[in-house]
């Protein structure tokens, strides 16, 4: 009886069909319909209107800024993530568990709060504000603030992928390389990195997707200066608030594109990443 219940062919055909249909319905309702809606709305006034919205100087400026921010924040977080993975995965030291918890902090803190903290520290009346103003290096309502906010919010993505994996692989291979005469850099490039490359790529993709799409923290520090401190998500919001629905959705298709590419890459990488964990 039990063995029968455990076999994948068990259960009546009707139940299986019903469950499958329910899963597809949920998927359609929450994923496919909204996605279709984004594109339908974006092309409501035709392809010409769509292109005009996407090619608007403000939209292009937002796209450039978004790419710039991602181009700074992602490499930084790859470096931080590798450092955190290395330190937390391969060594035992006092304060390690505190550091481990800190890696997750950006997930626990609301992005809006993170943005407000940046304003508190770097803003005009903040801790470092007067000093920064005196040296003509604005952080809040400028690009550095947006970069900082993005770095903070996207920090855990690479680190969280690497820490458990590096912990599982241990440091024996590194020790073996050392005994065989390899220096730190050689060991890192030829032993450590190849062991985590798929997880690193996976984390980097997630990190990039989030860096491009981050809204809350960036919104607080950006100041919404059109053409200067608006990233793509902020630009979508501005257009939407101005009742330019078609324009808002046209720009939103760019972000949706990033999400779709991420999804495909994730699916492609998923298997290799799982293999690496063995």
């Amino acid at each position: 009886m039990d063995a029968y219940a455990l076999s994948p062919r068990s259960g009546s055909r009707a139940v299986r069909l019903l469950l499958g249909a329910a899963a597809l319905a949920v998927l359609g309702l929450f994923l496919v319909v909204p996605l279709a809606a984004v594109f339908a709305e974006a092309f409501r006034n035709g392809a010409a209107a769509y292109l005009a919205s996407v090619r608007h100087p403000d939209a292009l400026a937002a796209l450039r800024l978004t790419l710039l921010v991602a181009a700074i924040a992602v490499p930084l977080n790859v470096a931080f993530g590798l450092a955190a993975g290395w330190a937390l995965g391969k060594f035992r030291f006092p304060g390690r568990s505190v550091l481990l918890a800190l890696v997750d902090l950006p997930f626990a803190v609301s992005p809006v709060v993170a943005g407000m903290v940046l304003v508190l520290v770097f803003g005009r009346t903040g801790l470092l504000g007067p000093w920064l103003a005196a040296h003509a290096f604005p952080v809040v309502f400028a690009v550095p603030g947006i970069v900082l906010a993005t770095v903070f919010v996207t920090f855990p993505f690479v680190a969280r992928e690497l820490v458990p994996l590096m912990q599982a692989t241990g440091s024996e291979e590194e020790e073996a390389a050392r005994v065989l005469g390899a220096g730190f850099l050689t060991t890192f490039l030829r032993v450590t990195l190849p062991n985590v490359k798929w997880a690193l790529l996976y984390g980097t993709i997630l990190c990039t997707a989030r860096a491009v799409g981050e809204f809350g923290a960036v919104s607080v520090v950006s100041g919404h200066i059109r053409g200067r401190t608006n990233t793509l998500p902020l630009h979508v919001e501005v257009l939407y608030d101005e009742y330019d629905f078609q324009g808002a959705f046209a720009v939103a298709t760019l972000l949706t594109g990033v999400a779709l590419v991420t999804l495909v890459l994730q699916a492609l990488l998923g298997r290799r990443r799982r293999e690496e964990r063995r």
Partner: protein
Amino acid sequence: MSIEVLGVTKSFGSFTALRDVSLTVADGELVALLGPSGSGKTSLLRIIAGLERADRGSVLFHGTDVGPRDPRERRIGFVFQHYALFRRMTVFENVAFGMRVKPRGERPSEEEVRRRVGDLLKLVQLDWLGDRLPGELSGGQRQRVALARALAVEPRVLLLDEPFGSLDARVRQELRRWLRRLHDEIRLTSLFVTHDQEEALEVADRIVLLNQGRVVQDGPPEELFERPTSPFVLDFLGNVNIFHGRVENGRALLGPLSVAYPDHPHAEPAPAAGYARSYEIDLSREAGDTGFWASLTRVGIAGALLRLELLPDGAAPLKVELTRERFEALRPVPGERLWVVPRNLRVFLETPVPPRAQ
């Protein structure tokens, strides 16, 4: 190249792994570092390799202190307990690694690397597996790849951490004989860690027995086996039965047994214990002048030997090993009462603090 360890002490937090340990491995010798788990043997091996730093004491290779030298400069071959093969590299690249990471000036040519890796893989009888990944090999094959990789850098000493620890019994026996033959062939100064006394007795030229971070005895296998200097050594190198009692007036009185003990001629008694190895006990159906009765509770087969368990009246159970011939001659059945005579009783005075619980 000889290895000398002088007064090495090492603690991890409040746990002292090694206390003032000294030992020497002569040039070309194969020495076993034997001890129960937690005795500090792996820590000592890692200190010799330079992977761990001693709190006090020094390590000398051929008379030169290697303390300040990084492991990569010590020219050692190290075989890790779980092999630590580079999982993303083929067997060939694993073995070639040590040659490829040499500084530019000393790096052998690609041709030379190929030739030497080929030779080493032949030496460990795996030349047909060069392009496999470590994950595709059996435990015994991985073990031999690890050895080939360690030898590729032409080390001055070879250190092996539980080299046969994670293999099944049959492969283990085969590999340790092979290692002994290989050592006889290349004569590389070698030190291997093991918790398996059989392995140490069979393979090593000399055994250094560690317990709780101290060297308990150091000598050739026969010496440790025949002339153990403490009950711990005796117990660790084989199954023993213990008879508690006392010594007085030149005799040891151990329950029903009484043997001469000339080292203690005094009248006042001192606590002592007699130890008899499980194969040094005779069983018979008739009582003699020394010995005692015990009932047979269990008979188990261990290859060529039979393991018997007997329960004497009011004492702890005894372990006895009989050869098949002697068992056939006696044919005892469980439940039967037999007369027990220890053939070779070794008596040690019991120290006020037992050596196992310091």
